């Protein structure tokens, strides 16, 4: 079956521009996560949704970052007034449930470059 998909795969933005990154999770997966991965580093948690509810946004680095999942499926991560330090790969992951050792399935990521 289809895995987690993300679009665009690559995004180049000028400093100060707004960007929107899309994530299509596996159908039926309740939980959705966003992570930020700097070059050569491990992913860092940004935010978590259970269905349409954003239950944890403790990892969002600033109020320029905003995420939504209005119908409990597709999610969008928006970054306003992008800065060079926002350059990273943004990974989306989904899992069937949150409870238990459920596997998180990752998308291919969106590589954001801010010039």
């Amino acid at each position, binding site marked *: 079956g289809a895995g987690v998909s993300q679009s665009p795969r690559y995004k180049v933005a000028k400093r100060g521009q707004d960007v929107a990154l899309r994530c299509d999770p596996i159908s039926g997966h309740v939980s959705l996560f966003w992570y930020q991965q700097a070059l050569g580093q*491990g*992913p860092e*948690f940004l935010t*978590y949704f259970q269905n349409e509810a954003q239950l*944890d946004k403790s990892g969002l680095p600033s109020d320029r970052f905003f995420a939504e999942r209005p119908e409990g499926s597709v999610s969008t991560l928006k970054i306003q007034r992008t800065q060079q330090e926002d350059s990273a790969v943004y990974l989306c992951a989904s899992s069937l449930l949150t*409870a238990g050792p459920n*596997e998180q399935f*990752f*998308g291919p*990521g969106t590589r954001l470059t801010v010039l």
Partner: protein
Amino acid sequence: AQTVTQSQPEMSVQEAETVTLSCTYDTSESDYYLFWYKQPPSRQMILVIRQEAYKQQNATENRFSVNFQKAAKSFSLKISDSQLGDAAMYFCAYRRGPSSNTGKLIFGQGTTLQVKP
């Protein structure tokens, strides 16, 4: 706060040989989950193996096995009969247990594994 440490930035192994990747973590919790993820150059992260902290038996998945030492807070990954396709970056990750309302993963810094033919 929980932390995960991978002290080996790079490792190398000869094809068909065995290699062990190290991971230590810090937590005050007694129930949690540990994972090893593989990230090939294409960047799509895939799960290699998982361990539930309450289980004393070490998890195994074909050529992959772990050495889980709860008291030492150590969770190493052993890859037997290494194959060229095993070349990737490997991440150790921690997740809080059932009492948590978030399933977020806390990752280590990663270990790049090179497999030599």
